[in-house]
């Protein structure tokens, strides 16, 4: 079933993509004319097929079985364990989609993604506009603002986890010094959610800022000068020059940011381990928990993985279509 869904997706893009309405004959003629190009890309296609295609196919297959670490056959030394897993069709999907847990996690994952990407983009745009002006020490500011991006995700997560520590953390120490009570940041579902979003925003803003800054600098200054001559207010200039000028950059980085954030494993896993309870667990961290704790449930986590992939494919298609409606060719 998954095969057909992605096939349909592929068909859809193939048919609607610009300039792909030729008949089969033209394909053959193109082959004849561009055979060297095909030969050139063959190694890449082969390697990509092996590195991505094979695990993907295997994952989809596993998701249709009841394979776990205990039922997969293997021979190690004197121990011979026969394979006892079976093809169970869509059972894994039915049980995942039928559980309240999945929908709970999906809602939180969507909230998490929208909040993070919204703040990433908003703050990134604001900072980029500031840095696009002529001001002193501009390169120093840029350097400082890009710093969070240079820190590896897991290091940042550990630093933040320490900052959030309810008894010995810096944040609570500051709160206490200012006369407020300590907050158990990671101990309550609501504050824990705010805490992980804050960390991810901190980590993701620099990228957005740099990307948007690049976009801003590609907008010709004459446009602003002309608008100013015509008496346009700053808001009108922003609305009618900056926003359209940034559209190409924005649409790309927002889609990328959405996919990254949707699957942002380290922040959640390293800061809260999904807790308290499983309140901050997003779909990928849950799939990881299925796959890598105790006796590993390969089939269940593969099914989670396929569902996550399908969600992102659907998201990308919808997003693409929305952009095309706005006249973007992306």
């Amino acid at each position: 079933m998954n095969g057909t869904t992605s096939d349909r997706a592929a068909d859809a893009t193939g048919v609607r993509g610009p300039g792909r309405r030729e008949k089969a004959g033209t394909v053959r003629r193109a082959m004849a004319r561009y055979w060297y190009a095909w030969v050139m890309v063959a190694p890449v296609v082969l390697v990509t097929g092996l590195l991505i295609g094979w695990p993907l196919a295997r994952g989809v297959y596993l998701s249709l079985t009841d394979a776990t670490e205990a039922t997969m056959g293997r021979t190690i030394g004197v121990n011979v364990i026969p394979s006892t897993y079976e093809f169970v069709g869509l059972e894994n999907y039915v049980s995942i989609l039928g559980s309240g847990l999945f929908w709970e996690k999906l809602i939180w994952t969507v909230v998490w993604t929208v909040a993070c990407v919204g703040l990433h983009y908003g703050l990134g745009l604001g900072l980029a506009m500031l840095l696009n002006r002529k001001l002193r020490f501009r390169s120093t500011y840029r350097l400082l603002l890009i710093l969070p991006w240079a820190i590896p995700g897991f290091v940042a997560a550990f630093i933040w986890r320490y900052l959030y520590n309810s008894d010995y953390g810096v944040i609570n120490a500051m709160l206490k010094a200012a006369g407020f009570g300590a907050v158990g940041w990671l101990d309550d579902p609501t504050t824990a959610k705010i805490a992980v979003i804050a960390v991810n925003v901190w980590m993701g803003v620099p990228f957005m800022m740099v990307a948007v800054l690049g976009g801003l600098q590609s907008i010709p200054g004459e446009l602003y000068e002309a608008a100013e001559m015509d008496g346009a207010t700053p808001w009108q200039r922003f609305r009618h020059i900056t926003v359209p000028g940034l559209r190409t950059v924005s649409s790309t980085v927002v889609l990328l940011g959405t996919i990254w954030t949707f699957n942002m494993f380290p922040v959640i896993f390293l800061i809260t381990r999904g807790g308290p309870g499983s309140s901050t667990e997003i779909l990928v961290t849950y799939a990881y928990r299925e796959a890598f704790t105790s006796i590993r449930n390969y089939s269940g986590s593969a099914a989670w993985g396929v569902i996550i992939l399908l969600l992102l494919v659907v998201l990308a298609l919808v997003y693409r279509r929305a952009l095309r409606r706005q006249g973007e060719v992306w």
Partner: protein
Amino acid sequence: MRRAFSAATIVAALALAVSACGGGTDDPAAAPAQSAAADPSKVSGEITWWDTVRPDSEGPTFQALIKEFAAKYPNIKVKYVNVPSDQAQGQFQTAAQAGTGAPDVIRSEVAWTAQFASLGYLQPLDGTRAVENESDFMPSPLSSTKYNGKAYAVPQVTDTLALLYNKKLLEKAGYDKAPTTVEELKKVALDVKSKTGVNGLALNVDSYFLLPFMYGEGGDLLDVQNKKIVVNSPANVKAMATVADLITSGAAPKPATQDSYANAMTALKDGKAAMIYNGPWALSEVYQGKEFKDKANLGIAPVPAGSAKAGAPTGGWNLAIYAGSKNLDASYEFVRFMSTAEAQAKVAKEISLLPTRTSAYDNPDVQGNKDVATFKPIIDTAVARPWIPEGGQLFQPLLEGYQAIVGGKTTPEDMLKKVDSDYHGIFKDWS
């Protein structure tokens, strides 16, 4: 492949000779004659050992033992790899399943051993040189090495939980000895709080640390013999209510749910809390704290009893051999050497880890170690957990429930109901 049989396990050896020793031409009757020590100079090979101790404080002792081993077995080369204890299980499973990168010998936590064995990762050890004089091992740690009646590991060290306390703080509150029941624990903690201003008790929000409260009321998680899930019992409800009461009454401050192990340790070390639950592995770290520069200030007592008894879980580590090891003979010799009473005594003397051999406790070096002497009677009352492959899965539901209780989000009854239903998801055919 050459096999030698120990006289003590002749029965198992017979079974093995028949069933497993495809290439073995050993005449079973000749087995007792082969129980003499193998010639150390004849065994050769290179083996990798994954150790899980703290590399800075405990590692050097084990590396010194390896040097002794190398002197005795000149043809065996031991590659020492330190793997953090919270990663070793996952890394070993990944490597063993993939068939590459697994070590020959792994230091396996007591709860992992049955799981590894059930997955076919471990070499059966009955009748091999690795197992020597099994009857000398303490029963509780020894039981953790068995799966389906066969030995898959050799006990290396054992441990349990105890009440660690700051003697000076308790004295200031008017107590010259540790509380022996949970009721006393609450009273002492409250008195410490009111008379000294520091917290009485620091709790660690972790499933393992809930077990003393459950055992104390006569509760348990599973009844393995009858294949029954017994976590949702009145005894456990009482235990959870006790824990919740310790927090709401102020005897223990509301603990952090993240990093709560480290926070509780820091609180004890800095004199910000008078009592914590922890095991012998924590002692070397506790003594680094400013309150315990004078080691005599640290009190170690059995965990306080509930209404039924005082009991803490058995912990500890085993030595197991990867079934795919290319150097089984060398691995057997290594495990045998590391689990001798002498090796255990050395470890106990230097880093206070508790021997699993009863004979090791007769060693003057072990008797000279005050911490080991204090822990020995506590170990004797420790409760063996069910050593089943699914053992590792029991903790996550319990942890989530504990966190919810600490956060005031659930009642003991509802929490145990939820844990019970989660356990039924793990053990589908249990009642």
